[in-house]
């Protein structure tokens, strides 16, 4: 058995060690393009979990690595002149150069052949060829892997400094050009990694494209002089980069397999690149041993084992990259909320899980919401809007669509405002006109199935909504606006606290907002006129339900949705109820748990308007996390109903019993 490993980074060297350890009769050669002591980058990060895997895989390297590690358990967040500290985040880092030395020495000890300064232009002859040659892998170009490489996130530059941070430190600095942020962490007793990042607009505004390497370094050194405590930044070919997100549909082609960054990258802001790469080496070596060195079966096992874990990490990393890309929109948040939003950016930490790591932090967070040192979690905190008090963040009872007229009903079962009487509790009266989605069969049968004997439907288009839907007629705008006003007046006498105008999901007002439906230039004209007219007669909380995006290539994007939300807020809306899609029947939605939370985050923080959001939030923890991070003000929960005799779901049911009135 002969294994050729192309690329002498951590994953390639580590694989070599593990293979020789498993079977000393295997010939293993590592071919590296650069010299043994050439390395780029400063420190690399490991989690406790990764260290555990390294210990199990090869105790000797584990011992040497842990001897030199810098460890921390704190994340410090420097923002608006304050430093917030969160504990319980056990991580460690090592100088990349030191890690390579350890691995190279161990390779030699176990008999891995190491060659440096070797350019591999064609695939070597071997039973197994491993492409461990990084994000711009050459081996990858010699096979069929379905490779996709695209830039993600902001501009970034990777420095070292001799200021030794004593925790993982995020620094946020507002400048006239926008926000810069730093990811800094110690990696040995004398040095720290210091990555500076900023959105492209900030980068161009500050003129970084015209600066030399030395000028850039000086600029960053001055900008963060206080954080560096007067120490220096060091460059190691430190130039501004775009992060390449690498994905491959398959990781092996015949007897050639990809490892680490060659197979997949994960944005540096979650610090998982080296961890994923070395875990790949462990999985591949284990699979080879388990499969008795049957290469085909091994490579399949390796992909099946690593694929899902890598995909999850990549998804979290992309969320994190997006957060830093939008960092400027969060600077209105007060420090503790800003910090929690940052900590929960990738979806891997929630209110509940942070509460286990760092109960002091969540207690402070809860206290800020509850305005008392001992407070329940944020979803249980009161909220006030236009003089209306909400006892908690999830108790609002949506009415379901109530039509302003018989013509505006979705199905014959839809109540009109004249028939509707409010249930008990704090009600969200959802007032609307179904437009071209009216006159359909009951929802127990399906949705958008036209009645055989329906009534005429209206919309700002002649195109029917879906298959077999009726051709819409022209809306009588003045009359419909008057129906909304009359309905709002009637609601005023029914003790309703929150009135919502339905401008989402392709109902009448929503259909005006989308270029997929409405061809007029000023698409907000009629919806805003309805909002304006209702605002005149409705003194309490007025919400607008909006599809924040059409989920269609020619429809409204999220940015368009944010602009519409901003216009609605300026037009008198107090609250935006965040929805998405259904503007047209053949949109391309992205359903998952909490699929609307990221949209709510964007509206709330970019348009700076309070939001209400649902989107299949299935736990109280989802609500606590969304509210605490400033992604929403109010939520609609979708708690699963479960039988008490199914123990796994019993806790959900108990929770639900606890929160329903």
């Amino acid at each position, binding site marked *: 058995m002969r294994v050729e490993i192309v690329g002498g980074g951590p994953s390639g060297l580590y694989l070599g060690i593990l293979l020789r350890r498993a079977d000393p009769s295997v010939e293993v050669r590592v071919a590296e393009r650069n010299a043994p002591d050439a390395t780029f980058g400063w420190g690399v990060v490991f989690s406790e979990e990764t260290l555990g895997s390294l210990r199990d895989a090869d105790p000797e390297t584990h011992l040497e690595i842990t001897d030199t590690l810098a460890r921390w358990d704190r994340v410090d967040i420097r923002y608006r002149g304050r430093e917030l500290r969160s504990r319980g985040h056990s991580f460690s880092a090592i100088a990349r150069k030191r890690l390579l030395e350890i691995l190279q020495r161990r390779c030699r000890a176990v008999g891995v052949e190491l060659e440096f300064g070797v350019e591999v232009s064609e695939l070597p002859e071997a039973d197994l060829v491993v492409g461990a040659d990084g994000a711009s892998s050459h081996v990858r170009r010699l096979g069929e892997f379905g490779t996709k490489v695209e830039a993600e996130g902001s501009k970034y530059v990777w420095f070292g400094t001799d200021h030794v941070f004593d925790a993982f430190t995020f620094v946020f600095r507002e400048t006239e050009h926008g926000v810069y942020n730093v990811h800094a962490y110690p990696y040995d007793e004398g040095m720290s990694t210091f990555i500076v990042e900023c959105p492209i607009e900030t980068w161009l505004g500050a003129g970084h494209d015209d600066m030399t390497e030395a000028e850039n370094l000086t600029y960053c050194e001055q900008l963060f002089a206080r954080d560096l405590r007067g120490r220096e930044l060091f460059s190691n070919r430190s130039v501004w980069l775009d992060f390449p997100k690498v994905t491959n549909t398959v990781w092996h082609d015949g007897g050639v397999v990809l490892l680490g960054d060659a197979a997949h990258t994960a944005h540096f802001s979650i610090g998982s690149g080296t961890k994923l790469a070395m875990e790949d080496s462990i999985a591949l070596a284990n699979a080879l041993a388990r499969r008795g060195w049957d290469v085909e079966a091994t490579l399949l096992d390796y992909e099946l084992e690593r694929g899902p874990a890598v995909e999850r990490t990549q998804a979290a990393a992309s969320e994190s990259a997006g957060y830093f890309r939008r960092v400027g929109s969060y600077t209105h948040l007060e420090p503790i909320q800003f910090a929690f939003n940052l900590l929960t950016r990738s979806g891997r930490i929630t209110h509940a899980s942070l509460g286990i790591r760092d109960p002091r932090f969540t207690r402070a967070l809860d206290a800020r919401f509850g305005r008392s040192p001992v407070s329940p979690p944020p979803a249980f905190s009161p909220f006030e809007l236009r003089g209306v008090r909400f006892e908690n963040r999830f108790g609002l009872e949506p009415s379901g669509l109530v039509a302003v007229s018989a013509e505006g009903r979705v199905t014959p079962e839809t109540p009109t405002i004249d028939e509707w009487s409010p249930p008990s509790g704090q009600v969200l009266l959802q007032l609307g006109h179904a437009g071209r989605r009216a006159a359909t069969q009951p929802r127990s049968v399906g*949705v958008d199935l036209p009645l055989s004997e329906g009534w005429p439907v209206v919309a700002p288009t002649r195109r029917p909504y879906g298959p077999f839907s009726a051709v819409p007629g022209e809306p009588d705008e003045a009359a419909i606006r008057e129906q909304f006003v009359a309905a709002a007046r009637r609601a005023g006498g029914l003790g309703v606290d929150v009135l919502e105008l339905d401008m989402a999901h392709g109902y009448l007002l929503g259909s005006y907002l989308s270029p997929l439906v409405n061809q007029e230039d000023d698409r907000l004209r009629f919806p805003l006129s309805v909002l304006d007219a209702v605002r005149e007669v409705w003194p309490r909380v007025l919400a607008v339900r909006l599809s924040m995006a059409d989920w269609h290539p020619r429809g409204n994007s999220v940015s368009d949705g944010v602009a519409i939300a901003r216009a609605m807020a300026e037009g008198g809306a107090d609250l935006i109820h965040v929805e998405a899609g259904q503007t047209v029947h053949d949109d391309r939605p992205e*359903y998952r*748990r909490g699929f609307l939370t990221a949209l709510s985050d964007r509206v709330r923080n970019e348009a700076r308007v309070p939001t209400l959001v649902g989107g299949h939030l299935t736990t109280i923890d989802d609500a606590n996390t969304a509210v605490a991070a400033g992604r929403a003000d109010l939520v609609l929960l979708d708690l699963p109903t479960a039988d008490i005799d199914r123990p796994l779901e019993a806790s959900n049911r108990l929770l639900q019993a606890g929160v329903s009135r």
Partner: protein
Amino acid sequence: MNVGVGLPTTTPGTTGELLLDWARRADEGPFSALGVLDRIVYDSLEPFAALAAAAGVTSRVRLATMIAIGPLRPTGLLAKQAASVHALSGGRLTLGLAVGARMEDYEAAGVDSRGRGRKLAEQLAYIRGDVDGDRIGPARDGMELLVGGMSGQAFSRMARYADGYAHGGGPPRAFASAAARAQAAWADLGRLGQPRLWGQGYFCLGDAGRGAEYLRDYYAFTGPFAERIAAENLTSARAVKDFVRGYEEAGCHELVLFPTVADPEELNRLAEAIA
């Protein structure tokens, strides 16, 4: 969760006699449903023909297409075929529909594959909306409708027109993630209650080599994924038990296990494994 079993309509060597024998045994056994797959360019049986045959020798099990590729058939004909099997079986059809994954099936059927998603939506609206129900019988009352597929559009079509979701197979974790998407779509479209969730897997409790060989051949059109699918074949009673448990935990209502070897003994082995 109920456990059903697939009819061996796509495995080599299935005769009419074997198919009927298989259906009879399944109807007597612990299984809740008989499932069929749909493919034109392969040595396989047409799903509605196979279910019609099974309808004649069974009285209890549901008969399910997991899935049938709707757009390969003109809409009126699809509705007619489904309604006929439903009537012949005394109202036991579960009609799972999706757009399928093989362009060669569309070519062979002489159907343009472009616009297949739109056509499926039309077919679902036609069948569920009872558009021609007064002219084209038999009645389709009680016919359960499922939609399969992994795209966002598949989930919204499911929630808009169907009673539930037909998952395409994979480990329980993959099913759980698809189930969450189905539930999110269901609530987003304002449907009441929960979608019915159907899952599927492959098993071979006899000659595992033959099972793997069949899967590699059947899924050759997926390129490198054929090996993955073959590797996930359930080849021991322990693997079947774990899989069944995993699907149950993930909220599956009906799990249909498809044979990879057309040997009636496989039914007994599966019955024992899930007992």
